[in-house]
């Protein structure tokens, strides 16, 4: 009897195995979803080109070639809100300097700056789909266009112009937030902890509120990432406004989530979802605003997805208090030399080694992880493109801007 029962259960297990094994989405779903996902991430690669050189003023984006994902319009709205206090989300550039702005490598007479010697920010291959043994794959998704990021070795040439008018730039530091900080942020949004879901790696807290869930993550080392939150709405909120930006702004304002840092607003349309991007910047005295970039060299910030006239989800940096201190920066000539001499150990290798003409360079801010505290540091982002087997690749080089004597790595 017992044996019959065991056999019956074993047969049921086999049926379950088969049931789960054969239950699959419709054939086109895999590629459709992948395309949709690609449209949410690598658009930065194209958007970056659109925004290159755009720090001040307003410019209409050039049309992107026919793709499933169209960058509709990029409107630069430099909102000069610069503050360092933790009032409201985010912290910003500018503000009180801890060091006297004297400029040059002699600023601290060889002594470490106010934050000590700094770790160097760096690009990291991250999630770029590449083949470690052969040439990197360009995504087949039409939404990507024909560009892919190449992290492998290349012979570099400089064919652009770089002028650095400053001798120092602020470095921003934050202390890694605690779970209590995440709880406080969640409470401010009316969310309560879901205790059972807190044990995940890097998770500061998972929360649920009226019609939404919230996840708060800690900083990560590789690729460097600041603490961030993801808010997903299960019940579309009643929103004011007719345009995506009005809807996003209304929601952010109502929930005190409007970024306090300088930002440029951009829009991306993907299917029936409009993404409103608040690209983060830091203010550099005498220079203007500089974008914050991620480990791929792409600009980022707060993202608000709008669907059906309502906010669907948000993801962005967790509001944090920032301290700032001025550090001396290298000259343009030194930056170019460093870029051309940089080692390029990355996944994906094209043979023969391609020659890349770096044509653009800009001062950006990149995160350098340092454990219980991390830094947003100035850096020079060089960029150029090359073509291999009919595919256009983007090559990026990041050169830390803080002088070597003030760096620990």
């Amino acid at each position, binding site marked *: 009897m017992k044996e019959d029962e065991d056999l*019956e*259960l074993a047969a*049921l*297990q086999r*049926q*379950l*195995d*088969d*049931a*789960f*094994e*054969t*239950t*699959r*989405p*419709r*054939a086109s*779903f*895999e590629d459709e*979803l*992948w395309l*949709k*996902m690609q449209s*949410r*991430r690598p658009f930065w690669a194209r958007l970056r080109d659109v925004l290159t050189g755009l720090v001040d003023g307003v410019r209409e984006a050039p049309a992107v070639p026919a793709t499933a994902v169209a960058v509709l319009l990029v409107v630069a709205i430099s909102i000069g809100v610069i503050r360092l206090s933790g009032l409201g989300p985010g912290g910003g550039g500018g503000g009180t300097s801890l060091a006297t702005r004297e400029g040059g490598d002699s600023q601290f007479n060889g002594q470490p700056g106010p934050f000590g010697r700094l770790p160097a920010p760096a690009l990291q291959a*991250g*999630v*770029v*789909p*590449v083949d470690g043994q052969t040439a990197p794959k360009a995504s087949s998704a039409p939404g990507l266009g024909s560009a892919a990021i190449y992290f492998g070795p290349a012979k570099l040439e400089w064919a652009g112009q770089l002028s650095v008018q400053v001798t120092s730039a602020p470095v921003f530091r934050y202390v890694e937030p605690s779970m209590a900080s995440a709880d406080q942020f969640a409470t401010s949004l009316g969310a309560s902890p879901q205790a*059972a*879901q807190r*044990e*995940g*790696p*890097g998770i500061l807290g*998972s929360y*649920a509120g009226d*019609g939404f*869930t919230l996840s708060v*993550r800690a900083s*990560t*080392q*590789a*690729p460097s*990432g600041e603490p961030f939150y*993801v808010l*997903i709405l*299960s*019940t579309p909120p009643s929103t004011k406004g007719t345009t995506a930006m009005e809807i996003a702004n209304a929601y952010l304002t109502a929930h005190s989530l409007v970024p306090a840092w300088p930002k440029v607003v951009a829009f991306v349309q993907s299917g029936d979802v409009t993404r409103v991007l608040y690209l983060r910047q830091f203010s550099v005295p005498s220079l203007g605003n500089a974008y914050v970039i*991620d*480990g791929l060299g792409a600009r980022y910030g707060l993202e608000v997805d709008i669907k059906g006239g309502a906010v669907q989800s948000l*993801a962005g940096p967790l509001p944090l208090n920032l301290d700032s201190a001025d550090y001396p920066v290298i000259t343009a000539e030194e930056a170019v030399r460093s870029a051309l001499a940089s080692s390029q150990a990355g996944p994906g290798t094209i043979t023969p080694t391609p020659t890349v003409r770096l044509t653009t360079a800009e001062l950006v801010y990149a995160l350098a992880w340092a454990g219980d505290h991390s830094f947003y540091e100035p850096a020079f982002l060089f960029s150029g493109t090359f073509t291999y087997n009919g595919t256009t690749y983007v090559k990026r080089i990041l050169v830390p801007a803080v002088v070597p004597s003030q760096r620990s790595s």
Partner: protein
Amino acid sequence: MLAERPPFEDLYRQFLGRIYAYVRAQVASSADAEDITAQVFMNAYQAYGRFEARNTTPAAWLFRIARNATLDHFRAHGRRERLRRTIEHEPVAGEDPAGMAEERIQYRALLVHVARLPERQRDAISLRHSGLSFEEVGALMSCSEDAAKMLYHRALKALRESVREETS
């Protein structure tokens, strides 16, 4: 040192079907399953830079996201109503006949029985037959490996009774 992370696309191609099947076993329509699966991979893609392979397997990480997304779905849409439709075999508004035709439905009846199980039993069955070890199932369900085994076997017996009742 951090454990090496595979390219996200590899994870996506490897786990999409399994995640979909896991979700599909719990929701009433293929459309819902697609929506949730899409949300799972969107969230995973966004968070992948922060995924630490040394702390968990990609499978456990993805299924955790899937489990949370499914729970969110039920919270948002009312599990009771959807379950009622499933049990009564009512068509769900908006179900795409073409989509249903495309879906492999050979074992749909069995998965309907799975969907009727109590939440934790349903979860144990779905996670286990999506390819997770009992250790991973236990970790996801906040219980020990042994407790996950016991829960699974209770769920299996309950499923057998459910199937028997319908066929008798």
